[in-house]
């Protein structure tokens, strides 16, 4: 994974984002695991809670897993164009509707953020105070919720009408304009990784690792 991230030029960004995403969960995992995991070797005690070696070991394992998951999801999102991904899925037989829902979902987040930004600016221009204390910021968020959600729903309705008028609901296969470049060594690498995954799972189940 590190080699892939390095090759894509996103290693630093990937580590930073993964750490940021993992940190809030990591703190709670460490606290819960270290102090509540049953164990025989006590390192130190805080009040009624004992920090045990077994707890530290379990917390470390969980953190590594969390970080690995975060890294793999982050690497995927940073190096894969979601539209290219779903169009390739469609080329491999997935329904265009499923592909559209997948892309629309991914694309909805930045669109909502952008809409919220525009509405927030217009609310501020009309005197709404959104700066300062947490209370003031919360007060600024509440008037955004209605317009953002209603506007997004209206947009979805109009977009679905526009798509209907462009034969989106027509049954049958479409001839896609392009295919993802898929080199021989990439196919071999994918199969090798799948084989490695199966072998690792089998070894794990049989107790060899």
């Amino acid at each position, binding site marked *: 994974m590190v080699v892939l991230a390095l090759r894509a030029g996103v290693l630093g960004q990937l580590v930073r984002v993964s750490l940021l995403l993992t940190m809030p969960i990591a703190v709670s995992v460490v606290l819960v695991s270290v102090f509540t995991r049953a164990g025989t070797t006590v390192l130190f005690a805080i009040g009624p809670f004992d920090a045990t070696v077994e707890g530290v070991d379990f917390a470390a394992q969980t953190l590594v897993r969390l970080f690995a998951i975060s890294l793999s999801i982050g690497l995927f999102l940073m190096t894969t*164009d979601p*539209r*290219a991904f*779903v169009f390739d899925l469609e080329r491999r037989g997935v329904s*265009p509707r499923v*592909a*559209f829902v997948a*892309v*629309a979902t991914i*694309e909805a987040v930045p*669109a909502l953020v952008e809409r919220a930004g525009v509405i927030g600016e217009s609310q501020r221009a009309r005197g709404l105070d959104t700066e300062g204390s947490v209370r003031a910021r919360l007060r600024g968020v509440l008037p955004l919720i209605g317009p953002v959600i209603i506007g997004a729903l*209206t*947009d979805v*309705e*109009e*977009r*679905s*009408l*526009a*798509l*209907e*008028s*462009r*034969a*989106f*609901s*027509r*049954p*049958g*296969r*479409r*001839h*896609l*304009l392009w295919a993802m470049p898929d080199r021989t060594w990439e196919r071999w690498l994918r199969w090798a990784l799948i084989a490695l995954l199966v072998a690792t799972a089998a070894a794990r189940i049989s107790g060899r690792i």
Partner: protein
Amino acid sequence: MLGLHGVGYRYAGYAGPVLHDIDLTLADGEIVGVVGANESGKSTLSLVASGLAPGSIGGGLSGTLTIDGVDMAGRPLHEFSTRVGIGFQNPATQLSGVTGSVFEEVALGPMNLGLPTRETVERTKAALATLGIDQLAEREPRRLSGGQAQLVVIASLLAMRPAHLVLDEPTAQLDPEGTRLVGEALRGLAATGTALLIVEHKTDLLDGLCSRIVVLDAGRIVRDGPADDVLADPRLDDWGVDPPSRIRLGRALAMRDLDPALIAGVVGS
């Protein structure tokens, strides 16, 4: 030929109908303009004529919608899409959001029709060239200006090559040059036999483009006739419609006892 015969339409959840007894027929190659005040039912008429109401948004339809003599009641929506294209006034919501370039966006419709790749590409290039936006082909649709997006949306409709096209304020966000290009493209399209129904506040666009104008008021057709006659009708103001600048200027000249024919050359140029 697209025909609405005694059509009334009520939105789901509305107490009463928004359209009443609409009788309207578009012959092949005919360009018909629809004008009227806000809330007069123009956009609803567009939705009904394209089959989206009630096909997609529900509601109740009375009367019949026919395309080339065939009653379209109960037909699946994708059958409409090959026969009637529709463009709305807000281009942002008409971009699919699933394509990475303008070329792919324009090609989406032909692709959905299941056309061979070669034909999809040919239609896409032709549609972009017609509106003079070939240079936008590689641009990301989300990064376009409002006017550019509107041209891309119209190109997307042209690429579908529907026999009938319904446009709801197609030039709402366009500058004069963009409006001129769209006007030329629509004229060219009509020359190939496509029937066009254009809902528009800008009567200047309809003047000279449409052969016929329909005026809607409170969901009813109150005037239907040759464009020159309707646009010169003194009741247009009462129906909440601004006459085109040619007519207004002519009236202003007439009020000062000047010959309105003086402006013919100026407006023509």
